[in-house]
């Protein structure tokens, strides 16, 4: 197997926000690895901290947020000398961050293409702007590259479209423009924060296929943030399930979908209706996510977990390795060798069996 090159390494990241109702510990010890050319997905409910994690990676946390501890190490090769560089983004100043990293090395596609474009500028100008700003390209060079990018993201009549304003385009087209802008400075890492939530199913599929296609062409590494497991199934190589500011299960896509171990992952997978569900009632995870303004004692998921053990209420579970795999890790006391054997719900088991069979045909 080829040597995988790690380009992003997040270790023990803790982020808190100061609010009127006290300090909110939004991220509590997140570890994340991203390798070149691969795609990871971060899944979780709203408020679980998926967006905050990636905002920290981009260095665009809100003003009341601080990184309390941890490191975000980023590796890249200098574009002129080809030298290998390694930096901890947390230690960089805002100025260095803006000059070297943000936009140039790591780019982001936001959720809502309606609000992330400037309505008073033509899209051509908006695509050219980062190239002129970061690389001091001349207008002509930037223009040529912008047209090329528009063609890359599948927009016909690229030259004509350069003069359009965002309101003249449909939602799917706008999202393509946003992707073109993100790609304009040749980043190594693309972060997609719910790139398709605001779009229709038909366009969603097109945008996802587009991102996959570009990823192959440019050897990008992509981080997807989403709560749609269907999207995850389509694009991701590795999945991280987040709950209450922690990653509670991580593994390859097959491990998470066909051999989930954490009760929360079971809940997530069961509550998705697939096209063959005809049970009378959908499975729901009871209760609501915890309020992180209060200190979480023990496992944050314990109050909603029907399989919770006594120790869950007292102590936070560490990451347990799943036997027989070097990528699958689960933060649940159920994985402890002394824990009682708990099987996943019967209905989910059947469903996974069926999913495995579907794949074979």
């Amino acid at each position: 197997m080829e040597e995988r090159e790690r380009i992003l390494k997040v270790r023990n990241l803790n982020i808190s926000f100061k609010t009127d109702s006290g300090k909110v510990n939004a991220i509590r010890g997140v570890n994340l690895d991203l390798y070149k050319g691969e795609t990871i997905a971060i899944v979780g409910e709203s408020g679980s901290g998926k967006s905050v994690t990636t905002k920290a990676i981009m260095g665009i946390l809100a003003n009341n947020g601080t990184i309390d501890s941890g490191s975000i190490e980023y590796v890249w090769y200098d574009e002129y000398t080809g030298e290998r560089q390694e930096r901890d983004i947390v230690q960089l100043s805002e100025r260095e961050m803006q000059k070297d990293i943000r936009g140039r090395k790591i780019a982001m596609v936001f959720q809502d293409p309606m609000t992330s474009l400037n309505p008073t500028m033509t899209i051509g100008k908006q695509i050219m702007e980062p190239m002129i700003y970061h690389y001091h390209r001349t207008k002509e060079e930037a223009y040529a590259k912008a047209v090329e990018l528009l063609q890359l993201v599948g927009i016909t009549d690229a030259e004509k479209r350069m003069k359009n304003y965002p309101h003249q385009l449909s939602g799917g087209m706008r999202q393509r423009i946003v992707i073109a802008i993100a790609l304009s400075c040749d980043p190594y890492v693309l972060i997609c924060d719910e790139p398709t939530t605001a779009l229709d199913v038909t366009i969603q599929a097109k945008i996802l296929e587009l991102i996959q296609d570009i990823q192959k062409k440019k050897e990008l590494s992509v981080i997807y943030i989403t709560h749609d497991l269907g999207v995850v199934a389509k694009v991701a190589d590795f999945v991280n399930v987040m709950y209450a500011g922690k990653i509670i299960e991580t593994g390859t896509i097959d491990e998470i979908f066909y051999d989930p171990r954490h009760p929360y992952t079971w809940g997530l997978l069961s509550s998705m209706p697939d096209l063959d569900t005809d049970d009378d009632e959908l499975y729901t995870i009871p209760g609501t996510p915890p309020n992180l303004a209060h200190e979480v004692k023990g496992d944050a998921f314990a109050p909603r977990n029907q399989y919770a053990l006594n120790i869950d209420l007292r102590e936070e579970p560490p990451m347990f390795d799943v036997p027989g795999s070097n990528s699958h890790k689960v933060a649940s006391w159920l994985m402890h060798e002394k824990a009682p054997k708990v099987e996943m719900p019967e209905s989910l088991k059947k469903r996974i069996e069926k999913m495995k069979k579907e794949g074979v045909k």
Partner: protein
Amino acid sequence: MEQQPILSVKDLKQHFRINRKFTVKAVDGISFDIMPGETYGLVGESGSGKSTTGRSIIRLYKPTSGSIVFNGTEIGGKMSQKAIKELRTNMQMIFQDPMACLNPRKKVLDIIAEGLDIHKAYSSVEERNEKVYQMLELVGLSREHASRYPHQFSGGQRQRIGIARALIMNPDLIIADEAISALDVSIQAQVVNLMKKIQKETNIAYLFIAHDLSMVKYISDRIGVLHLGHLVETGTAEEIFTNPLHPYTKSLLSAIPHPNPKVEKTRTSLTYNYEESGLDYNAGTQHKITDTHYVLATEEEFKSFIEHQHDAI
């Protein structure tokens, strides 16, 4: 026994005149029936006219032409006072964005009771409040919640308040316009279960408008596929999903992401483009496949649909 439909829409048209030269035909001649206690799902991409249909039926717009018969009363054209009262009490709507559809300056108690207040449907304040408390409990909230403001609730809870507000008048039909699209997956399931439970208890009918096809399949008895203001295919949920005929339906179905990596990784979605497909919606008529399954097509188009019926999706 032949049952009377609770809502019967015939050739409904809703045009918006932008200026002298240009009229948007948002809904262009659609017909369907909804039976009591049934859930009718309306799907389509944005701009296909789903929401407009819902809004025309509940008369947030004045329909350009066509008839809407609700509980035996014609509500499509100019309405009598009696018809207005009938409509406003027995048909209710749940809106898409639970953050935006509740008045932030009113307490939950007053938001839910607003319908009662307007129609003076109570004899004492105690009775009014008691009704609200009952509704809150029906939707899985507690009576203490009544004295709070909307901002104190989470998204899922707010949507429950929206449902309680719609239910308080004991309606026969609820129009749910993307009622769950703005919610998280795990919360979506809670709300859908709640809507199903209420339907069992009260035999209410739903017009369920959404673009999430897997959820629509799960909740609906019958489905109508809307494209460019035309109902291109209608049928039971089973028929639409197992035997789609219209290319647009096929492309919609192919676009649904399956939460199964083995299938999903190798699949690409179909494309469908009205201009390039050579179909003419305006010339088409409804062709019958089974008693419940209809597709919009001209004679020739229909033949080719049947030929390609079993092409893999």
